């Protein structure tokens, strides 16, 4: 989308300038070759980024045709909400892993997501629970038994 590109290229340009000046604060040693200073590389990248951002701006402005690509497909409100929900669950999982424990968290995570994502008319809750159990068991088997990954010990 043209207007997003324009905004983004400006943001990137400002960002690269900010990055450049932030890297200025890194310690600088006059005696050594410039490359050996910690700030050189970030500044180098910042410059290239700035140039690219400008290029993006220029090419976007010069584009004659409208949206050739539309990445904002028609997702309904429902699917956007679902995505958000999945994200929340994904964030909850490591937290649960630490405080509640591996087995319970995994089971909970799996079941909730399956329930939320499934077409309710096709699968009933019992089947979903069963699959959740199986998946949890498989995962437990692979990671705990076979690979011996030490999980943080929570409740269970």
């Amino acid at each position, binding site marked *: 989308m043209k207007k997003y590109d324009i905004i983004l290229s400006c943001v990137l340009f400002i960002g690269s300038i900010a990055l450049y000046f932030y890297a200025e604060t890194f310690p600088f040693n006059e005696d050594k070759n410039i490359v050996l200073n*910690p700030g050189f*590389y970030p500044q180098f990248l910042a410059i290239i980024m700035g140039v690219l951002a400008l290029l*993006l701006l220029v090419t976007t402005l010069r584009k004659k045709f409208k949206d050739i690509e539309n990445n*904002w497909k028609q997702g309904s409100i429902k*699917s956007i909400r679902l995505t958000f929900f999945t994200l929340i669950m*994904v964030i909850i999982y*490591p937290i649960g892993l630490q405080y509640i424990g591996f087995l319970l968290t995994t089971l909970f995570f799996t079941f909730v997501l399956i329930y939320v*994502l499934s*077409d309710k008319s096709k699968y009933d809750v019992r089947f979903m629970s069963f699959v959740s159990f199986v998946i949890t068991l498989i995962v437990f088997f692979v990671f705990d038994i076979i690979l011996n*990954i030490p999980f943080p010990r929570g409740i269970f």
Partner: protein
Amino acid sequence: MEFLSFELYLAGIHFFSNPLIYIYLFLGTMIGIIFGSLPGLTSTMALAVFVPFTFGLDPILSFAFLLAIYMSSVYGGSISAILINIPGTPSAVATAMDGYPLCQKGRAGEAIGVATVSSALGGLISVFFLAVMAPVIADFALEFSAQEYVGLALLGISVIAMISSTSMIKGLITGIIGLFIGSIGLDTITGYPRFVFSMPELFDGLSLIPVMIGMFGLTEIFEQIANQQHLSIIPQKLAGLLPPLSEFLRLKWSLLRASIVGVIIGAIPATGGSVAAVVSYALEKRFSKRGHLFGTGIIDGVAVPETANNATVGGALVPMLTLGIPGDPMTAVLIGALIMHGLRPGPLLFTQQMPFVSSIFISLFLSVAFMLVIGLVGARYFAKLITIPKSFLIPAILLFCLIGSYAINNSIFDVGILIVSGIIGFVLKKFGFPVQPIILGLILGPIFEENLRRSMILSDGNWSTFITRPISLVLFIIVAFVLFAPYVLSFIKNRYLHLVKLIKG
């Protein structure tokens, strides 16, 4: 030193009368395919995990086992790349680009079949190359110094920017972002913490795997849910598993090219399957008559990267065996295995342990055969995986991604990185920015900076060193070509057409 002799190749053949070795080859292949096809479990992880398993085992058997894992896990990544658009391993990054569209067209079985045969072909050719060219390639790779690595890093970024489906500028931008993310952490030379924000976990920089799984795995899943694809099940054409032989014959030069690319890139230390897959895909897209069809779902787009990535296996083993330098992360683990078994990589291996070296060649060769058979027979069953409703598959995959990224360093922080990467990847893709260059930037960034500095030290601050060294010069010319050729060419074309119009009238 004369390494090329028949004694070398046949010295280890007597080991293969032992039926046990075939069992290990089989096991290794199965494990490799399973680990490869599950996003969150990578070839390197599979090898790292199973090396300790081989501790009490005879080195010949151990390496038959490990090499089978290596070879088939590189192939295995294509399965999930094709079926669910998430590369199972980094080397399958390019396979998804045409593999998944093929799957969406209902041709998943065919795609997997092609991937299997191509992988076998690439693997086979690389074994021959390994056996014949080991001394030659090792010599060439020795010439590579810091300056050449700088050129190589630049080449990697440019190439990946080029093949990203959206605009090249956006690809380069994300590439730079990747390079920048790669600089997070303690500066290697001065020890100054860069962009660490007082988080000690970041001192070593961002781990590659969580970022990769996040941007390729989580992002993809979020996208599929957002696009309501979590409900769709595409009925698969499971019959007609392979395209006719004529298709492969048509592709013979492309596949040969891809194998050569794979072997060479594999041989160059630190670059592996993913780089080879991407480069060969880009080359094919640029030079093939069907280049414009790449990305829409054509066999070429699957066959070429799969050939290249399996070809890196043989290639990566060259510097590993002859010099003790890993050609890619997987061979780095294998070096550890060698040492664990009391063997030292290097020229001595070739002179003192000929039977062992020969058994490696033969094991590799056999592992290709196992991979081919199991892959083709199993393609039917792997393709059936897609009929499992996505609503069940997605939580399972998410679990593997989450736990997988935890497992690398036993670190919840890595899981956090995973999640953040997933979010960033999702947002980037929504705005039309490709995600692959970030990963490559993350990999090549440290290599780029370190060697840039080393080049300056070696040349006493003389910047022209990049152009005065012959190999480096060639690399930089290629980079310039990759970056500017499209524009120069279209400019020339426009001028030409303009002239034609003027003349006509």
